[in-house]
């Protein structure tokens, strides 16, 4: 197990280096720091303002080799954009936003709360509802309930996420007046009002695929010998379904679920953006729209790190959920 973990961590490390190199090529060699400066402070500033801005944001160094330092000096290689890029990312010193000079770390801390307040309920409720409906449908397989749910799930999967958002805002916010159309307020007395609709929309748009997947897994398990044995021994339906089927179906469910956990931190791009929730998803959209390269490469890097973490967590959870799985 330990050896496997070390090997996976090493693979993860290599992937991180690859991601950082790719980010460097995209953000520093394809995009000219002069262009970034012009976008940030406008076209008509004096040359010295551009120079100062590039210095403040660390864009004033050469890409790979700093010939201002002697051949023997380490600074020849460390006082470069490439080294600085790696140093900042690996030490989580993300610097300041290109758009408004705000420290990116501060933005991440401020955005994590609203993002988690949306994604955690969405994740937990989505899992509970998906598993419950899938168990129910699997139990009534090949009946009209199963067939009706198939239609409902296919419909849910076929409609674009954006339509759910706009439709949800119109229906539940405008016509039925159940929830605020959009917005966010961390104030405890009102925060639930703002989260109800995006969570509901997220649940409706996501449940179709989950239910179909879990149903397949449950039905596969329900056909196994141990289920027949359990029934023969007199176990009731509830005990068979929850105590045996659900427990043994955990591995494929975990694959689907654990990989998503790290991404709870990065927020939900569309939901946050359309519902005006100031989370990390919104931050990413803002960075794209506002040419904020520093924030964007931070978010891409964190996304890659979280993906690697998710993969690792999935593998570990396999072993924990099923002792028969050997990772060696």
């Amino acid at each position: 197990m330990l050896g496997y973990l070390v090997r996976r961590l090493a693979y993860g490390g290599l992937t991180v280096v690859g991601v950082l190199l790719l980010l460097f090529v995209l953000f520093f060699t394809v995009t000219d720091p002069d262009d970034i400066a012009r976008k940030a402070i406008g076209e008509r500033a004096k040359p010295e303002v551009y120079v100062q801005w590039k210095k403040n944001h660390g864009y004033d160094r050469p890409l790979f080799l700093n010939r201002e330092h002697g051949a023997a000096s380490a600074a020849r290689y460390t006082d470069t954009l490439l080294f600085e890029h790696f140093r900042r990312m690996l030490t989580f010193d993300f610097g300041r936003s290109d758009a408004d000079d705000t420290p990116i770390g501060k933005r991440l801390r401020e955005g994590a709360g609203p993002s988690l307040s949306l994604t955690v309920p969405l994740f937990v409720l989505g899992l509970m509802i998906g598993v419950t409906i899938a168990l129910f449908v699997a139990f009534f397989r090949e009946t009209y309930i199963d067939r009706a749910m198939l239609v409902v799930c296919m419909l849910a999967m076929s409609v674009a996420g954006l339509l759910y958002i706009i439709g949800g805002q119109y229906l539940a916010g405008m016509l039925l007046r159940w929830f605020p159309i959009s917005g966010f307020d961390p104030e405890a007395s009102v925060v639930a009002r703002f989260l109800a609709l995006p969570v509901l929309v997220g649940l409706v748009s996501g449940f179709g695929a989950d239910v179909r997947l879990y149903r397949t897994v449950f039905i596969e398990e329900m056909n196994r010998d141990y289920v027949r044995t359990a029934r023969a021994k007199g176990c009731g339906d509830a005990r068979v379904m929850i105590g045996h089927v659900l427990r043994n179906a955990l591995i494929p469910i975990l694959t689907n679920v654990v990989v998503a956990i790290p991404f709870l931190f990065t927020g939900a791009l569309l939901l946050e953006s359309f519902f005006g929730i100031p989370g990390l998803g919104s931050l990413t959209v803002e960075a794209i729209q506002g040419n904020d390269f520093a924030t964007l490469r931070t978010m891409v890097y964190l996304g890659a790190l979280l993906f690697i973490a998710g993969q690792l967590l999935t593998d570990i959870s396999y072993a924990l959920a099923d002792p028969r799985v050997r990772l060696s």
Partner: protein
Amino acid sequence: MRCAIVAAVCGLLALAGCTNNPYPDADDHRKVLYSSFVEAPRTLDPAVAYTTAEHIVTANVFDTLLEYHYLRRPFELIPGLATGIPEAVTKADGSQSYRFKLRDGVMYHPDPCFTLNGQGQRARKTVAADVAFQLTRLVDPAVNSPAASTFADVLGVSEFTKRLSEMRKADPQFAALPPHVQYERAGRVAGIAVDGELDLEIVLAKPNPQILYWFAMPFTTPMPWEAVAYYDGNEGRANLGDQAVGTGPFRLATYAKQHRFTLERFADWYGHRPGSAPAPGAVFPADISPADVKAGVIDPAYAGRPMPFLERIVFTREREGIPRFNKMLQGYYDDGGIIKESFDAIIKDDQLSPEMVARGMRLDKEVEPTIFYVGFNMDDPVLGHSAGEKGRKLRQAMSIAVDVPEYLRLFLNGRGEPAQSPLPPAIFGYDKDYKNPFRQPDIARGRALLEEAGYKNGIDPATQQPLKLSFDTGNTTAQALLQYEFMVGAWRQLGLDVRVNATTYNQFQQKVRQGAYQIFQWGWIADFPDPENFLFILICENSRTKSQGANTANFCDPEFDALYREMKSLPNTDQRYQIIRRMVAILERERPWIELFHNESYTLNHAWLVNAKPMGISYPAYKYKDVKPKLRTEMRADWNTPVRWPLYLLALLIAAATWPAVRTYQRERS
């Protein structure tokens, strides 16, 4: 099963208690104004802040030495923090000075930055040196203020900036000092003189009467040196751009700039301090026009009352137009614009629809001091100066072909006034009876002009093909491309082959820098209500290729430039008016621009919002506005009663659909 039923009942109860009110119930009966913004402010540093979103904070948190009269049109300056409007005094050397006297006892909003002055207080009095410090910041190249070029006219500015830049370059330790120390060591700007605590003299190297308008903008607000030194972004302290330490009627209470910010009434504002004489900008004006009263814009009962009236202003970010508009209709924003998608439902025959009138809505329309235009690059050999009469006729032909009323109808729901010259209404020099002969759509006349230019039926004699021209843009959105295509279609009727070259904004800027463009579309929103602020865009000195100035058309006409210089230094007299009309006549003939339209704002206001007169220029004067919370609460409740029957119906449908299966299961098991 029991658990499912309990969960369903709990869910239903939770939904039954829900509401779409986005605000805490406790605020229902308070004088809170709710508004929205689209783009997050980049900075609140008043030396740099320039956008609408930034001004809704800076214009309310920072007092200015002068202000605009809230009700009078054309716009008129009144004293703000200054005790009067200074007169220009011309000196023997041709320089001109303005002497301001500040009101005594004006206090800053309490802030931790004031602990830096060592007196152990969290606020202090405003002094003239604070205005001098801010004016110096405006010309500091490191601040990069949009107002720097205007204040470059102040005596000694170029010498000061040269000294400052050299000292910074020579000594990195000097460059790291707080700005006020740097300015002291570099020696003050000769034309900014502080006399005692409250007197300030500004000396301009050459006359510039328009400079007074800049003292009605937050750029020139008093700025405490402590705020600049303290909020340097180091050691966990915020950036100056995220703070607002002002003297205004409202103070910045919360600032999550990507999401929401709130302003709260400043209890110690100079306008309502006991014992101080009421300043013109501290009491609601008494000279209310009957037209404003009749239109329901102004409540005459407010005349002479001390301001501000609101306790708090909450600005929430709404990036998407549809949710913003719908929340306004629900009563959760007190005012707002009209989105294109709902325009036809809200406006009937250019008036509010009966449904909106029944809801107590009020529509305020105002032509804004803006100009949107298509420009020709006058450096271009085909279209520009060097093409002589041929180029002039070509520009005239292209100008006469563009049908702006149709353009406005198609793309802007008719919200705009077709422009005849760069000058919009409410700006001195505008002539409402003037009709530019090259702005009245006439394709036949356009073809004739084109023939006179030597391009019969649009054919270029050199190639025997339709004359090829390029319309360059950095806007690649579908909507913008349709708008450009409208114009290209008009020119196609003349036989011209104009191609839209839509590139990235960066590439377009590169083209502009290099002068590699022929036709472009641009707009201008006035900084202040004076014709100079429109006509300066076309003087040779501001040519884009020569000076990177605002004259992107690179128009150069010595007569126009001479008239501009004369007009600039004159007050609004008949003589100035006649000069402006001569300048407009030159533009009519030369056609460096095809003037398209002046934007017209349509603002919807709820019945409970009082004294919301549109200002046109970026001057959100919330101290004049008020709300009636009781009326608002009643109307909101009336409009927002939740519709719950679909919820019960849905629950019933699910129960009905699953019940047979459950019954069958129970029968099988029993």
